């Protein structure tokens, strides 16, 4: 077996910093080269911010792990120059089946809305995702961007100061110290950074174990998501079958609480379970097996002075709904433009407090959704099981019960309602594009809307007049002038105008709406720019 997760992608190499007489100072150090750390570093380096990634390992992650990537993260990855390889390699799926006991109760089609460049979901092993991001890091390096990744550099101590952070780092050749103006801690659910800073991480542990298996088989199962409640081959528990690229299938089997993990992981115990599920005549090869217990919890605050947590180090959810890696990418999407403005002296440091507010809002929404899914999949009491089974029985006969079946509410981006960066909604427009919302994509004849937004503030005008550039206290906002005629499908009109005939949107670098009105008003939009950058 020659898998990409066995090959060092960024092997240790001694760096001049290790021999420096005084610790070298870097602008930003990202701790952890998982998907979230890599995305953060790419985002900053693309904007010209010097960044060093430290990872205690030198390979992509082992096993498939996060496999389901939603549209919004793919759009973020497009902005980072890594979306296309994801979509090219990933498996697109829209169909699913739900089974209860020994029968199929219904099937569904996600029916993704038309007029988006990216699909609703793709399935892709995390190791591919990380490989694509590492490739993007190397590409940026070749272009001269200030980004660097140091393998087998393990942070062993952290010191926090008002204007910088000190890190002690162990390498295969000894230890050395570094300083950073800012540190982004993306070192995963078990975050050593969090432990070294002695920060809280409270929440709910679910008393359950799941066996995850990656299985290679040449089976003619369709490209669908199959979910079983209480199947004969895993009585009283649940099961999930999902397709990944390269003929790899992901199987999740709920095992219950009181089990011997080491014993259950052995192939001689795993294989009979899988045979019971797939049928005796299906040939398969076991690629990777893991057992996990999950938790739903978050840090009380994600920002601690100059150390900022993102992804699993800041919040954890159950896997139902694919809200882990997907929400982590939304963290860095939210953080990096703010950090860039603060580093450039164009926004006050307090702008970073809005990262806490907005992403804690996102984390709470994800925790709520994934907790509800977990409670549906694993009812906590006799009555919740009875109600759950009633929903499943009814779902076989009546459409109304199907939306109540909850095997995971798949990740959608949250709207930052109530964010201090939002200006009051001044357009009688669609609900989905109110201030705080992520911009929905729309077709524009020669392409799509979202690739024209992002990285910088944009003034989107639809059949409205406005200056081509506005500069407000160091923040440059460029206009993107569109007309409803640019989109014959009328998706642009439906998503951004509704019943209005014109609109002006102030859009943040992370493609979220900051303000909107029917027409341009210089005073109000200048105030909105100040507000969106933490100055009001």
């Amino acid at each position, binding site marked *: 077996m020659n898998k990409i997760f066995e090959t060092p992608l960024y092997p240790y190499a001694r760096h001049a910093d290790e021999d420096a007489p005084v610790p070298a100072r870097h602008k930003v150090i990202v701790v952890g080269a998982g998907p979230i750390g890599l995305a953060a570093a790419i985002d900053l380096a693309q904007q010209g911010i010097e960044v060093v990634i430290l990872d205690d390992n030198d390979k992509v992650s082992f096993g498939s792990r996060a496999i389901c990537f939603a549209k919004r993260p793919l759009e973020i990855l497009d902005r980072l120059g890594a979306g296309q390889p994801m979509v090219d390699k990933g498996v697109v799926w829209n169909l699913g089946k739900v089974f209860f006991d020994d029968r199929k109760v219904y099937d569904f089609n996600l029916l993704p809305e038309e007029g988006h460049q990216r699909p609703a979901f793709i399935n892709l092993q995390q190791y591919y995702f990380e490989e694509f991001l590492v490739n993007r890091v190397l590409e940026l390096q070749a272009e001269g961007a200030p980004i660097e990744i140091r393998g087998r550099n393990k942070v062993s101590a952290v010191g926090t100061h008002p204007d910088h952070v000190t890190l002690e780092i162990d390498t295969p050749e000894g230890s050395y110290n570094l300083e950073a103006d800012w540190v982004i801690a993306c070192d995963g659910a078990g975050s050593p950074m969090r432990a070294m800073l002695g920060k809280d991480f409270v929440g709910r542990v679910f008393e359950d174990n799941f066996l995850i298996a990656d299985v290679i088989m040449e089976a003619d199962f369709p490209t669908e998501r199959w979910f079983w409640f209480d199947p004969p081959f895993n009585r009283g528990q649940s099961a999930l079958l999902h397709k990944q690229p390269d003929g790899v299938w992901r199987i999740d089997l709920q095992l219950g609480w009181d089990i011997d993990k080491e014993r259950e992981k052995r192939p001689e115990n795993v294989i009979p379970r899988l045979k019971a599920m797939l049928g005796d005549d299906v040939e398969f090869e076991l690629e990777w097996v893991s057992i996990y217990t999950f938790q739903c919890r978050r840090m009380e605050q994600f920002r601690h002075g100059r150390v900022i947590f993102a992804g699993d180090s800041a919040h954890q959810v159950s896997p139902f709904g694919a809200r882990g890696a997907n929400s982590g990418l939304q963290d860095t999407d939210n953080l990096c433009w703010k950090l860039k403005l603060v580093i450039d002296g164009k926004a006050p440091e307090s702008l970073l407090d809005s990262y806490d507010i907005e992403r804690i809002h996102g984390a709470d929404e994800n925790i709520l*959704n994934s907790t*509800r899914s977990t*409670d*549906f999949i694993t009812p906590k*009491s*006799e*009555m*919740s099981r009875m*109600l759950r089974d009633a*929903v499943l*029985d*009814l779902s*076989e*006969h*009546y*459409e*109304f019960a*199907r*939306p*109540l079946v*909850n095997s995971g*509410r798949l990740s959608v981006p949250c709207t930052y309602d109530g964010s201090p960066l939002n200006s009051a909604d001044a357009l009688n427009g669609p609900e989905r594009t109110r201030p705080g919302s992520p911009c929905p994509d729309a077709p524009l004849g020669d392409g799509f809307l979202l690739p024209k937004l992002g990285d910088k503030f944009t003034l989107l005008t639809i059949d409205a007049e406005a200056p081509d550039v506005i500069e407000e206290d160091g923040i440059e906002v460029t206009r993107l002038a569109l007309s409803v005629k640019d989109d014959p499908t009328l998706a642009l009109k439906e998503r951004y105008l509704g019943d209005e005939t014109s609109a002006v949107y102030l859009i943040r670098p992370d493609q979220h709406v900051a303000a909107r009105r029917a027409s341009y008003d210089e005073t109000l939009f200048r105030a909105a720019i100040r507000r969106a950058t933490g100055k009001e």
Partner: protein
Amino acid sequence: MSDLILTSNIDGADDFYAELLATHEGLETGDSHALNARLVLILANHIGDREVLSQALRAAKLKEEE
């Protein structure tokens, strides 16, 4: 004469389901059953329409009756 609605009709279905579970939380099974019985009667009174109620009773049996 109105017909029983068997298509999705609850805004925020997940919120409703969570509230239903929360209402049962901490109850003994017998008390939970009693709560469900009261709930059925309260909802039936709200619906009022005898024909709709009869349709609902048949629907709950999950048997296709002509």
